[in-house]
């Protein structure tokens, strides 16, 4: 809340969210946050939930909740009605701001009062002049700012606790106050319930950068907004970037294209980025600075960055070890320490694989109603596997839980997938382990072919196996390659390995073709 107060005081007349014509200024955002705080307090709630796509109501409610010293809880509106109701029940008594078309989804629940987003916006616009309360809020920072339910790919979703001090540390450590020029605008297309969606609001408000929101991602709409709103920076997840790349390629006529001349910076994160996609994006957008951000919900977003120069240097290099940095998460933020640990929690020598541990003031590692996952000396074991190269670049190989254990050997799906997607005939690929009596697990690769398949499927499968064998060790060669139309992703671009394992269960023991 302090961040917004400073923004309103420092550049209150700038547009904070929306179009230059008709958007809300930072002062208006501040006033509406205050008016909404009164409304949230009056509801007698312990939390402010939101089950909605991005709109002006999002930053208003986020800051309004902070003003009222209540946690803000963005819920995934794509969940089923039952799942959504269960999560809302876990934070009751709560006031929930919802999409007008979805009022019924949370109505009638014990301890949950529902507010129509459009009605809230209209009320606040009428009320603000009279009712902005005194600016009093938690300054110590111990209070919970945001509760974010993890995607729960392995069971019941956990509610990650991000306190004000975590978020303020992140913003102060990574964003310069009023660092943005008045003409700058950031396009936010990640949903509110993704930590990147929350970080985008806080960072851009503190930088004084106008926020343009795209409620539902669509490549054509995204490209159109960049052009009509003069967007200068944006953050996307890998699946969004691959669709944007396809869209931009389709626009090329006789080798000429409009491109995205206003877009100075494009940041991506939230999952594995196929190298062919990022290489193509770098070629299509030669004037755009690319930033790869690695972070987790529990670390208040970004903890490591691969910056623009790193990208161009890697792309231009003939040295494979430099080029491999394109697949890395870059270097840790100056305020963050990273350590690679083995299973006993002992640090491994540089270059060795292990679990990524991080430490810093922005790192929470805390879940509501559970013991904190931080070690006594403040380290957070991320459950991500990875290694650090000689030059200090952090390489993330994927969730440790996804590691395939074949014949007692740990095999990271990430490295197999990297080889597969680098093949011109492959547009996407995933490697999973399936039960095998002899080996414990066998490696199965699910591959999406690109374009019109030219080679015979069996022959192509053998070709891909050979490609992996040539690049990696033979114990990493897929035992079986199967071709699928598409891989299962959630809407924020995370591959659903659990779904894939279930879909391909027949390729496990006893059904080897």
């Amino acid at each position, binding site marked *: 809340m302090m961040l917004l107060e400073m923004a309103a005081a420092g550049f209150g007349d700038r547009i904070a969210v929306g179009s230059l014509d008709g958007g809300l200024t930072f002062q208006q955002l501040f006033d509406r946050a205050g008016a909404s705080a009164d409304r949230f307090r009056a509801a007698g709630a312990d939390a402010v939930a939101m089950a909605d796509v991005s709109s002006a109501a999002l930053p208003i409610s986020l800051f309004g909740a902070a003003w009222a010293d209540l946690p803000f809880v963005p819920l995934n509106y794509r969940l089923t009605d039952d799942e959504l109701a269960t999560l809302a029940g876990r934070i009751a008594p709560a006031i929930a701001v919802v999409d007008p078309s979805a009022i019924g989804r949370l109505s009638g629940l014990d301890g949950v009062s529902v507010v129509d987003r459009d009605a809230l916006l209209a009320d606040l616009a009428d009320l603000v002049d009279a009712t902005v309360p005194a600016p009093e809020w938690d300054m110590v920072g111990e209070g919970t700012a945001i509760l974010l339910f993890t995607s729960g790919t392995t069971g019941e979703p956990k509610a990650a606790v991000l306190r004000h001090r975590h978020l303020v540390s992140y913003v102060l450590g990574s964003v310069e106050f009023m660092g943005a020029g008045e003409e700058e605008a950031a396009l936010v297309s990640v949903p509110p319930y993704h930590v990147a969606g929350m970080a985008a609001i806080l960072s851009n408000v503190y930088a004084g950068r106008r926020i343009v929101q795209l409620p539902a991602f669509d490549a054509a709409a995204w490209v159109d907004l960049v052009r009509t709103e003069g967007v200068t*920076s944006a953050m996307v997840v890998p699946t969004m970037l691959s669709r944007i790349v396809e869209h931009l390629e389709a626009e090329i006529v006789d080798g000429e294209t409009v491109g995205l001349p206003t877009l100075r910076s494009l940041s991506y994160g939230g999952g594995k980025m196929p190298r062919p996609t990022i290489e193509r994006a770098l070629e299509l957008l030669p004037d755009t*600075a690319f930033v790869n951000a690695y972070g987790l919900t529990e670390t208040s977003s970004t903890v490591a960055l691969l910056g623009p120069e790193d990208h161009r240097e890697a792309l231009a290099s003939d040295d494979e070890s430099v080029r491999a940095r394109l697949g890395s998460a870059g270097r840790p933020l100056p305020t963050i320490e990273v350590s690679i640990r083995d299973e006993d929690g002992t640090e491994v020598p540089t270059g060795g694989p292990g679990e990524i541990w991080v430490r810093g003031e922005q790192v929470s590692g805390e879940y509501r109603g559970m013991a904190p996952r931080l070690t006594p000396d403040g380290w957070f074991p991320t459950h991500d596997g990875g290694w650090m190269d000689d030059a200090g670049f952090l390489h993330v190989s994927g969730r440790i839980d996804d590691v395939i254990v074949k014949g007692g050997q740990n095999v990271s799906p990430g490295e197999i997938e990297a080889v597969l997607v680098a093949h011109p005939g492959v547009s996407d690929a995933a490697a999973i382990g399936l039960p095998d009596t002899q080996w414990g697990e066998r490696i199965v690769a699910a591959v999406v072919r690109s374009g019109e398949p030219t080679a015979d499927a069996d022959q192509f499968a053998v070709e891909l196996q050979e490609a992996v064998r040539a690049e990696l060790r033979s114990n990493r060669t897929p035992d079986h390659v199967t071709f699928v139309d598409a891989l299962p992703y959630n809407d924020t671009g995370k591959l659903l390995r659990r779904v894939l394992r279930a879909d391909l269960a027949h390729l496990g023991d006893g059904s080897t073709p």
Partner: protein
Amino acid sequence: MPELKPGSRFASDVCTTEVIVVKGAGEADLRCGGAPMASAGTASGGGTPSPDAAGGTLMGKRYVDADETIEVLCTKPGDGSLGLGDALLEPKEAKPLPASD
């Protein structure tokens, strides 16, 4: 002397500067414009910064002492310079990071 803790706010007695403590705990002789700072809302105002502490403060800048035992964030700018005792605080130089959000 005022008691510092993260989150506590102080205002200058001799200019419009206000700060919030980011780091540091315990009693400290926090000054602005050469005069002791007061808890926000209790500053009496009036007076002018002493000439050797009149460099001014910038909003959104973080200021630290030489040993980095305390760090304050300027939330309102003014004409005075921040100090710990007689020593002036220095603006913390942050290496700019590319926008990632």
